[in-house]
């Protein structure tokens, strides 16, 4: 890759190990599993949407997700296809796929729990959780990071200096909040999932969400929260550069000095 290295066989490179192998494995395994959970989950959701409204006389829809699909796809008048299925067809397994979606959802759910458990055990035994624990200064720090991200593009266009807030730890405050929120969100998704799946045998869990409907609503919104997290997550990784992506594959980063005033 680098010419200098090829020239000198004894060349060395300074690296810092950022992510444990188990964290990397859990990270990448979660990606397809979550994708599968959302795709199958949407097809289950379609069978009886929990977020419903009275019938819309124009579309015949009672489902906000179907409305969203209709709104995005802008069906030309007279088309035969069901515009309410637009979103379910693209992000889910489609409509009228309940039996197949359920089997897949259980498969991915058990995989999700396995990966989550491995991650949790690894983090607990290895002490990796400490990097995720919130600190007293995190609220102010997270706001500073948000301000930085929101202003980065305008500052670049205006050619004004826009320094990155200093980061003295493994993650910046916003990252710390987000990376702690994800496992907790996963736990909430699993808990609400079991409350829906076994509301009789695990009735204490169902009670935790008030009732069955409560678990359904929470379970749906954990999906929305996961899907929403992915967007800024990917955008920021691209913006931050190749080193950040590579460190989640190989574990190490070449940014040994800390790019943002890290010591």
């Amino acid at each position, binding site marked *: *890759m*680098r010419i200098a*290295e090829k020239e000198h*066989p004894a*060349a*060395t*490179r*300074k*690296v*810092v*190990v*950022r*992510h*444990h*192998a*188990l964290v990397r494995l859990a990270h*990448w395994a979660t*990606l*397809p599993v979550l994708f599968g959970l959302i795709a199958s989950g949407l097809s*289950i*959701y379609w*069978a*009886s*949407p*929990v977020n419903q409204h009275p019938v819309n006389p124009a579309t015949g829809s009672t489902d906000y997700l179907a409305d969203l699909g209709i709104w995005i796809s802008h069906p030309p008048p007279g088309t035969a296809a069901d515009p309410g299925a637009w979103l379910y*067809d693209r992000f889910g*397994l*489609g409509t009228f*796929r*309940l*039996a*197949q979606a*359920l*089997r*897949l959802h*259980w*498969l991915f759910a*058990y995989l999700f729990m396995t990966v989550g458990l491995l991650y949790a055990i*690894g983090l607990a*035994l*290895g*002490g*990796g959780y*400490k990097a995720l624990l919130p600190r007293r200064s995190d609220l102010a720090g997270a706001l500073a990071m948000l301000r930085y991200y929101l202003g980065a593009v305008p500052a670049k266009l205006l050619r004004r200096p826009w320094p990155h807030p200093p980061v003295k730890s*493994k993650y910046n405050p916003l990252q710390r909040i987000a990376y702690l929120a994800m496992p907790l969100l996963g736990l909430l998704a699993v808990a609400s999932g079991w409350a829906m*799946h*076994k*509301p*009789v*045998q695990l*009735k204490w869990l*169902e009670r935790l969400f008030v009732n*069955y409907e409560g678990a*359904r609503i929470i379970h749906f919104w954990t999906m929305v929260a996961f899907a929403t997290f992915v967007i800024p997550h990917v955008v920021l990784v691209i913006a931050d550069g190749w080193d950040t992506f*590579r460190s989640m*594959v*190989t*574990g*190490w980063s070449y940014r*040994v000095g800390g790019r943002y005033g890290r010591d």
Partner: protein
Amino acid sequence: MDETERPGERRRVSVAKRLAEPDESPVELPASKVRARTRRDFLFWTAGALVAAGGFWWLLPDETRERHLTPAMRDWLDSLEARVGADRLRRERFLNRVLTFDDDVAEALYSPTRSVRTYSRSEITPLKNNYNGATPKPDYLPGWTLTVSGLASGRVERLTIAELLGRFALHDQVTRLFCVEGWSAIAWWGGLRFADLLQAYSPVSGARWAKLESSVNLDAAGGPDPYYVSIDLPTARHPQTLLATHLSGKALPVEHGAPLRLLAPMKLGLKNIKAITSIAYSVEQPADYWNERGYSRYDGL
């Protein structure tokens, strides 16, 4: 990931040390080693991505595949996957095994002494008629009998609704009925305990299952479509498992399974068969209508 490892020298490292959060201090490594490890990890990552993508394609329902890629690409992928054994038959077997596993988990969670949550009558919600096909016409009611077979006595019993109501105590309960589709409804049910019927007419020795059937069920076009479910006897013996005869204090209406339906609130709604015409006990697990259509079999909630 131990960077101080020397060739030819393998040390025992404790699990805690292996899992330890990496030290944030920089290490200086031969550039060739960094390159080799990077290459190895990216190859591993790419292989994982390919397996995940291939696995996804394999697992997708046929109807979902039809909406993605071009026919030529689909054929190419399908034949490529079939070469490594990832064909449709295997997919069905694998996913059905997932269903069985989940059913086993449900069965392991079941406790005969755990009561189903009950509600007050003020919490009752509307209950829709969810007959899979057309609702049967009430002309079956006058001639209706319940046939009970698979008995220890070797007899086949035929019971009328008057006999059932006269012989057994009726019990009330307000419970939630959960549909596999996701909706649920809280309703006030009344009926005899399945356990009482089991006591009065004991099944053959070794019986573990009951097949409940309704010969009056219809398909969407109104043609005959007998409906049948398998119920494990531990569930049938639960005190909250009723052979319901009443809804909201009145005799069951036709759309909710007159004159007798199953109310097993610890099972999915699809097990709560309406207008039962026969109960047959068996040692072997009987067929189940929705299990034959790709749904789970035990359906324990």
